[in-house]
């Protein structure tokens, strides 16, 4: 079920009413209800993959249980290896098998060897990378004895299948999020209104800005051989804003829905395009995934505690894995590699914290954005060759011209204005209307009308494929 579908607009009010008025007698009932709604939400897309979700859920719950009851270190190690192998195995089978099979085939063919791996046509289950990571965080934390395994299967099922963040995060760590399913939920007016504002702004970003940009981006990237120079630059910039609005819009909606159900999800985007360097960008972009990789990959690899070269290698590995996490395509690996290259100088050149002038800060923001946008070309291109051709044609200057209508351009300006004014708030819209309270309701109405006018497009979220 898509957040931007009419089905969901009917689904959520029903869930909200039943949740607060019918099943509110006990936490257990609310949890059971949340688990069921999660299954309905996920199964709506394809009920067969619900079995996969259930399998992952049952396996990791059982692993958690045995980890808790087993004292023997070797057995505990075996259990966590099993959980890792199972979850990563799911990803490999459903997401990476064809990619690895074809890549190996290509490598062998370079040496003149003809090897035929059987490639299978498997549909990628939506959100698999998100829920397997969330599930893994549970078993790892129990293994590390950072938390006790839960004996309440229903609460665990509600935690994994919590529909607002089931398909595209934020990836919540079990230590932080699971305990919330054991706390009594009391409806909080401030939390709920803040949730509605997040939902409104999230929908606007997704349905109005991202989907408008998408039309141009798809045209430019799919027909880049017909364009050159400025239009291709604009195509990359539009994609930068498309993916930001698409993903952060989704997160805002997810966080808003969670607030309406009495939960707080972690902040996933903190105005990443206002970052002054790449390191800061990664502290602001997809925060839940970055922290997951930090805690479960970078730190176990040794983090930054060893030599500077070892730290650099660890960072490189994290970025490469992060690229691969996004999809089984060399374009994503290139994207990860590029970000690693951007990031590594900051490991070797340690600078003291300095306060720069406004002009320098602006320039830094601009340079960081340009680097990030350049990397997005690899992320969006269909193949590596396409990405290089795209970049090559980008430098064939032929004057300034906008693709089609300028609506996307003005929407981006509007987004930047709201984000800049409201950047000290978790929700830019709240920050903006707090500064201009007289226009508050007019603003809400206008945003809602724009959403309504663009709602019919119902384009899927980019991150659903990951």
């Amino acid at each position, binding site marked *: 079920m898509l957040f931007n579908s*009419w089905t969901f607009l009917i689904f959520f009010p029903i869930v909200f009413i039943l949740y*607060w008025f019918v099943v509110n007698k006990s936490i257990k009932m609310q949890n059971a209800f949340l688990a069921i709604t999660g299954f309905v939400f996920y199964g709506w897309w394809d009920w067969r993959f619900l079995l996969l979700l259930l399998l992952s859920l049952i396996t990791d719950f059982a692993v958690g249980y045995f980890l808790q009851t087993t004292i023997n270190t070797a057995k505990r190690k075996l259990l966590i290896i099993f959980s890792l192998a199972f979850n990563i195995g799911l990803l490999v089978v459903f997401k990476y098998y064809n990619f690895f099979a074809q890549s190996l085939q290509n490598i062998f063919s370079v040496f003149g060897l003809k090897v035929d791996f059987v490639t299978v046509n498997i549909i990628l289950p939506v959100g698999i990378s998100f829920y397997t990571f969330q599930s893994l965080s549970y078993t790892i934390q129990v293994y590390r004895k950072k938390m006790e395994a839960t004996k309440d299967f229903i609460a665990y099922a509600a935690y994994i299948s919590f529909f607002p963040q089931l398909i595209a995060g934020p990836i919540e760590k079990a230590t932080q999020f699971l305990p919330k399913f054991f706390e009594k939920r009391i*409806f909080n*007016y401030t939390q*709920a*209104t803040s949730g*509605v504002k997040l939902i409104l702004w999230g929908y606007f970003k997704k349905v109005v800005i991202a989907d408008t940009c998408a039309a141009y981006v798809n045209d430019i990237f799919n027909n880049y051989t017909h364009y050159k120079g400025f239009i291709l630059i604009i195509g990359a910039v539009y994609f930068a804003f498309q993916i930001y609005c698409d993903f952060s819009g989704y997160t805002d909606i997810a966080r808003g829905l969670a607030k309406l159900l009495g939960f707080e999800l972690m902040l996933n985007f903190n105005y990443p395009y206002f970052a002054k360097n790449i390191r800061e960008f990664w502290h602001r972009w997809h925060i839940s995934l970055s922290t997951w990789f930090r805690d479960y990959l970078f730190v176990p690899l040794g983090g930054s505690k060893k030599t500077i070269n070892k730290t650099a290698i660890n960072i490189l590995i994290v970025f490469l894995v992060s690229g691969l996490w996004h999809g089984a395509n060399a374009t994503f690996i290139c994207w990860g590699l590029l970000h690693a290259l951007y990031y590594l100088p900051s490991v070797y050149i340690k600078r003291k914290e300095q306060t720069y002038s406004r002009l320098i800060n602006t320039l830094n923001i601009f340079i960081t954005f340009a680097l990030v946008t350049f990397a997005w070309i690899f992320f969006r291109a269909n193949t590596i060759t396409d990405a290089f051709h795209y970049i090559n044609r980008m430098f064939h200057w032929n004057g300034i011209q906008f693709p089609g*209508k300028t*609506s996307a351009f003005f929407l981006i300006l509007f987004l930047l204005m709201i984000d800049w004014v409201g950047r000290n708030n978790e929700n830019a819209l709240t920050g903006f209307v707090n500064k201009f309270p007289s226009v508050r*309701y007019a603003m*809400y*109405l206008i945003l*809602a*009308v724009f*959403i*309504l*006018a*663009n*709602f*019919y497009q119902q384009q899927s979220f980019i991150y659903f494929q990951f």
Partner: protein
Amino acid sequence: MKKFLQKLILFSFVFFLFAIIVLVASSAIVAPKLSKRGRGCVLDKLNRIQNIQQPKIVLVGGSNICYNTNSKLIEDSLHMPVADMSINANVGMQFYFESVKPYLKSGDIVILTPEYDAYSKINFLGDESMYELNIIHPKFISILSAKQWLRLPLYIGNILKDNYNILVADKNSKISNGRYDYNAWGDYEGHKNLPSQSGKFMNNKEDDYNLKENQIINEDFIQLVKNFSIYCKQKNIKCFIGYGVYAKKLVPEEYAFKIHNELKEMNWFTNNPNDCLYDANQLFDSPNHLLFNLQNQRTEKIIALLKKQLHN
């Protein structure tokens, strides 16, 4: 909770009120511009059907009629005035039936040629294009069915966006299919001297036009056609049905005969799909539209088939 729900309901109410005001206001502004576009031809078609002599021949269906028919030729051959009331399949067959009913009189002849895909698609109600026609001619509101009223909220956003595009975004863009591309009888002539674009739709990867053997026929649509036929019978109006023009390669024979079987009690001016199938190079911009220079050939075929039926 009470305060929250009260505020939410109040906001939702104000929002919908605001949206409706914007919808009505923008529609009123857009109406004159919209009526100059293709669907504006409905005003001229209504004008003609109201003012021609009785008994008359009324052509009912989608654009496969107005693109492929020379009504004047029918008029001259059968010595009866012709009103081509076809517009665009997206408008929905229900609209065609309801909009012509008030003007049908005893002794009239109705020729019905729904598009092939009309039999399998669910949206015979017409969806948003139906609402566009209401902007052009608000009297059509009276023929909206309860189902269409129920679906209206789904299209408010769509209509707002269309209105915005007409008023602001597409202000200076050239209209390819305009109201004045239709002649006095209601036939489309905008494709005069234009070449075939069959490459575009014959290789359509999305399979929009490619009908399948196992295509499921929409029972509601069949019922709608039957009801219309009964209505005609009761009013002493002769109603003939036939297949619309389509690309040879894209219609499986089995599907065509399935349609005929469902409607075998009706008067068919032809139940042979081959009478209506054409090669790709004879088609203009869709499998339903012939090149302009084939209009007469197609019309003569219909006249011959009709004459045969009328003599029987």
